[in-house]
C-alpha cells in the first residue's frame, strides 16, 4: 500500500526536522569545544529514516548505528533530549553517557544503537526473536551501511534470521562510502541486496532518496514479516553529503559528485511531488520549515543550558 497523505506529511515534517537538526550540528561542530567527541551526520539521507519509520508502528523496534539522528527523530525521539545527549549533558536521553554515537531510546522502540560497524544485525535478530517468542505482532528494523555489509556478523545474523523466519527488516543504507572507501573499492557486487538470495530472503534495491518508495518497500517487508514469512533485505541507494564525520575533509569525494547528489536532495523531491499533487500548500510547507527551525533552536538552547553529569555519576549504571 502506498503512503497516504498523512504519511507523506509525516515524512516531510520528519525530513525537515532532521535536516535542520543536523545543519545546526554542523554549525555547532565548527565551534571548537562546543560538542565533545565525534559528529557523524546523515545529511542528504533523511528519506531513509523518514520513510522506514513512517511505515512502522510504535511496537516495532529499530536497532541503529553511528549515523542515527534521522532514524531516531523519525521514530519519535524528543529533539531536546536528543540534542542534550549529543552535547553529553545530564539531561540527555542517556544522562550524557552515550553522546552522539550510542543513543538508546527504549521508550520509542530504539533500545540499542551500536557504533561497532556490523553489530546491529545480530542484536536485531535477538530483538526479533523476542517478538516471535512472545507472539507479538511487531517487527525489528536494523539499519546498516554499505560498509557494514562486509562484516561477518551481518552474514551470521541474516542467515539466522532467515533460518528461524524472524520478523527482521535489514535496511542497508548504501551511501556509497565506507569511511574513505568508495563502494566499488570495498564491494564487487553491484547491489548489496543481491546477497539476500544467499539467505533465501527477498532482496530489493530501492531509490533511497525517494521517501515514498522507502515507505512502500518497508510496508511490504513488514507485512511479510508479520505473516511469519521472515526477513527481507532492502538496500537504499543514497549518498553521504558530509564526510564520515564532521572532521573528515572529504578529500576522496569528487566535488561534482557531491553537487550532483545535492541536486537530487530527497526533501525538495517529496515537497515538489506533494505540492504538485495538491497534498500540501506552499504556505503549509513554510510553516513546517519554521516550526522545524524553532524546535531545533529550542533543543540547542536546552542542551547548552543543561549541566554536565556530576563526577560520581561515572560509577552509576554499570550494573543493574
Amino acid at each position, binding site marked *: 500500500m502506498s503512503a497516504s497523505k498523512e504519511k507523506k506529511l509525516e515524512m516531510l515534517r520528519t525530513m525537515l526536522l532532521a535536516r535542520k537538526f543536523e545543519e545546526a550540528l554542523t554549525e555547532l561542530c565548527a565551534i571548537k569545544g562546543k560538542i565533545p567527541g565525534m559528529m557523524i551526520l546523515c545529511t542528504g539521507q533523511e528519506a531513509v529514516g523518514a520513510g522506514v519509520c513512517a511505515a512502522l508502528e510504535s511496537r516495532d*523496534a529499530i*536497532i541503529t548505528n553511528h549515523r542515527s539522528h534521522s532514524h531516531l527523530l523519525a521514530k519519535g525521539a524528543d529533539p531536546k533530549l536528543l540534542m542534550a545527549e549529543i552535547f553529553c549533558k545530564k539531561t*540527555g*536521553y*542517556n*544522562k*550524557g*553517557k*552515550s553522546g552522539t554515537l*550510542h543513543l*538508546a531510546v*527504549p*521508550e520509542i522502540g530504539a*533500545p*540499542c544503537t*551500536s557504533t*561497532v560497524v556490523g*553489530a546491529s*544485525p*545480530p*542484536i*536485531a*535478530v*535477538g*530483538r*526479533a*526473536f*523476542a*517478538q516471535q*517468542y512472545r507472539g507479538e505482532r511487531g517487527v*525489528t528494523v536494523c539499519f546498516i551501511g554499505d560498509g557494514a555489509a562486509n562484516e*561477518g*556478523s551481518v552474514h*551470521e*545474523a541474516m*542467515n*539466522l534470521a532467515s*533460518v528461524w523466519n524472524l520478523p527482521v527488516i535489514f535496511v542497508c543504507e548504501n551511501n556509497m562510502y565506507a569511511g574513505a572507501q568508495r563502494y566499488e573499492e570495498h564491494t564487487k557486487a553491484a547491489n548489496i541486496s543481491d546477497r539476500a538470495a544467499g539467505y533465501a530472503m527477498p532482496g530489493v534495491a530501492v531509490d533511497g532518496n525517494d521517501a515514498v518508495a522507502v515507505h512502500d518497500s518497508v510496508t511490504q517487508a513488514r507485512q511479510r514479516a508479520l505473516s511469519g514469512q521472515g526477513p527481507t533485505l532492502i538496500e537504499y541507494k543514497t549518498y553521504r553529503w558530509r564526510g564520515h564525520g564532521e572532521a573528515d575533509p572529504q578529500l576522496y569525494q569528487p566535488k561534482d559528485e557531491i553537487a550532483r547528489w545535492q541536486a537530487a536532495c530527497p526533501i525538495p523531491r517529496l515537497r515538489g511531488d506533494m505540492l504538485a499533487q495538491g497534498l500540501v500548500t506552499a504556505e503549509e510547507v513554510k510553516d513546517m520549515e519554521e516550526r522545524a527551525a524553532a524546535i531545533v533552536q529550542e533543543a540547542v538552547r536546552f542542551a547548552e543550558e543543561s549541566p554536565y553529569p556530576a563526577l560520581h555519576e561515572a560509577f*552509576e*549504571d*554499570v*550494573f*543493574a
Partner: protein
Amino acid sequence: MQQLGMGQAVNQALREEMIRDQNVFIAGEGVGVSIHDSPMLPTHGLLEAFGAKRVRDTPVSEAAIAGLAVGAAEAGLKPIIEIMFNPFFTLASDMIVNHAAKLRYLSGGKSSFPLVVRMKSGAGFGAGCQHSHNLEAWVAHCPGLKVVMPSTPADAKGLLKSAIRDPNPVIFIEDMMLYFAPGPVPSGEYLIPIGKADVKRPGRDVTVVTWSKMLGVAMGAAEKLAAEGIEVEVVDLRTLAPLDKKTILASVRKTGRLVVLHEASRTGGFAGEIAAVVMEEAFDSLKTPLRRVTGPDIPVPASPPLERFFIPDEEQLMTAVREIV
C-alpha cells in the same frame, strides 16, 4: 545427598530455572541435538523436556548466538547461550564485551541485559589450544560483566541459578573435566550468591587462592601438606568479578602467606590481579613474598604428556608452599 557431576548439576539448575521462568531459553550449537550423547553433559535431555521453542539449536554462528542473547535480553527474555569451547568466545566477544557489557552504561541505565554465557573450558582432553584456552582474565577485565567459575557441582548449581536470576550479563565458565567428577549436590532449591568466595579448607599457615578445576589440586596438596605439619587455607574464589576481596584479605591477614593457583597461563593471568590487591591492601600482613602457580606461557599442547605438563599439579603447588612456609 545426590552425587552429580558438574554437567548434571548445571542441567538441574537449567531445568529448575526453565520451569520457574518462561522467559528463560537456551541457545547454542548442539544444545538440543548434540554430536555427544551423555547424561553427564549440561544440556542433556532439555530439548525433550522443554521443546524446540525454548531449547534452540543454532547454526555455527557465535556472533549471531551472542547477538541473539543481547537483543532478546534487552527485550526482557532471559537467554542462556552456550559457547562450545572457551576459545570460540573470541568469535562472540564483540557482542558480549562491546554490547552486553556496555549498552546498559551507554543507555544511562535505561536498558538491561540479563543474560548468561555458559562456556566450556579447561585443558585435559587432548584437543589442543584452539579448544583449550582459559580466558577468564580477559572477561574479568571488562567492566559490566560478572564472571563465575565454579569448582564443585554443588556450587555450580547454586551459582548458575543466581546467574540466571541476575539482571546483568554473567559469564559462567565450566571446566569440562569437572563434568566427570561427581560430588554431593543438595536436592531442592538453593542459591549461592555471585561475588562470594568460599573457604573450602581452613588453615593457619598459608592461603591458597584458586578456582575451578584447580580447587581439586589445592585440596589434594593441602591434605598432603597437613601430613608435613603445614596447614593450608584454601580459598575458592568461585566468582572473579565482582571479586570478593574481603575473604581473600581476611585469609591473608590470618596466614601471612599467599599462593595463587590457576590453570590459565601466567602473564596477564588473574593471579596478577589478586597479588596486586593483596600487595596494596595487606602488604603489612605478608611474612614472605607471594607465589603464583599457573600454566606456563605457551598455548595448551595437544600431546598428552605435554598437556599434563601444562596443567599445574599438586607437586608444583606443594613446592611453592614449602618455599614460603
